[in-house]
């Protein structure tokens, strides 16, 4: 009985997560032996517009629909109607996770033995992923959550908790409560590709967890660097222009 459960679980997991070992790409290593995910990466599609409409992004459930609880679905539709004014990104707020990895602005990953850091061009956001802590901080919440990571073979697994309820997943009003819990998986799939998966669970909003999968591409220009997208500055400039 136990064996069947184990096999069943493995099949389910296999359906949901990318099997790095089976695909055969072995990434180079950092000096301290971590798979090297470093570099400047960006999405080349636009999943941020609408996760459900972005082809192939929601890989679980198979129908590609976010499994909202009924009351939550009503609120999503309300959000979507008011998206232009209500999208937190429109107020230059922090995008949250996983949305921050899905925007059309590059990110840069840095790795050190105890900590992985991700710098974002979008409003100079920053995430620290702590490899030596195994518990989330208590009784506090963050826009981008609290990230603790470990290696599963060549995949970086990041457990993100301590979310507030203020961010959206996309421009289409997909949202969550402060019970949100995200498990990310970062896997090199080739010299210039990085596969990003995020399993999203929030029992206050969704009837079951759901998973997205997006490929990020390396920026290969020589001397590539993150630029600056300074949302509040651009808003002020635009406001001043209109005021004249």
């Amino acid at each position, binding site marked *: 009985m136990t064996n069947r459960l184990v096999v069943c679980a493995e099949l389910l997991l296999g359906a949901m997560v990318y099997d790095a070992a089976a695909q055969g790409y072995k990434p180079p290593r950092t000096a301290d032996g971590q798979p090297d995910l470093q570099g400047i990466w960006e999405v080349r599609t636009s999943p941020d517009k609408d996760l459900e409409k972005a082809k192939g992004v929601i890989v679980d459930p198979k129908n590609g629909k976010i499994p909202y609880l009924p009351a939550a679905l009503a609120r999503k539709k309300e959000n979507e109607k008011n998206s232009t004014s209500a999208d937190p990104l429109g107020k230059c707020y922090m995008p949250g996770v996983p949305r921050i990895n899905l925007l059309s602005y590059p990110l840069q990953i840095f790795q050190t033995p105890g900590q992985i850091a991700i710098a974002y061009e979008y409003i100079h956001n920053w995430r620290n992923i702590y490899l030596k802590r195994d518990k989330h901080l208590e*009784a*506090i919440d963050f826009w981008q959550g609290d990230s603790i990571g470990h290696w599963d073979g060549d995949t970086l697994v990041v457990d993100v908790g301590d979310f507030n309820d203020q961010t959206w997943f996309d421009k289409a009003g997909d949202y969550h409560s402060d019970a949100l819990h995200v498990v990310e998986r970062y896997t090199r799939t080739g010299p210039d590709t990085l596969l990003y998966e995020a399993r999203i669970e929030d029992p206050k909003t969704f009837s079951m967890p759901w998973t997205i999968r997006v490929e990020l591409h390396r920026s290969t220009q020589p001397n590539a660097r993150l630029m600056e997208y300074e949302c509040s500055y651009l808003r002020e400039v635009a*406001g*001043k222009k*209109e*005021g004249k």
Partner: protein
Amino acid sequence: MTKNSALVVVCVGLLLAALPAVAHHSFAAEFDASKPITVKGTVTRMDWVNPHSHLLFDVKGEDGTVEHWSAECLPPNGLYRQGWRKDSVKPGDEVTVVGFKAKDGSFYMWAQSVATADGRRLFSGRPEDRGATGPEGPPAPPKE
């Protein structure tokens, strides 16, 4: 001025009014270091925001009127490092807030410490706690 441009001017004005303020001289600009006060009231809300969190509490005056007070506290990270948690003070809690009164005469103060009815004491700023409050900190006990 056309109606549209007037509307835009108003909108820009509102936008500016909503800007966060992180000026590090803000303490001296807003609060009177020579006017330490202690106020007791009932918590209505706590906003954990930058640059300063706010503890909102109601004070019943002797004449039965209710004053809506706001106490400015450390930024969220400062509070957390002082031991505050999101559930440290909750709406309905009776609190005693020690701090400095606002210069503009409103029901507004800087909170040095917050004591709860069940005997807990939470510190929001101490004169030498530069690290948590930033260089401007709350001042040392007034000398001038």
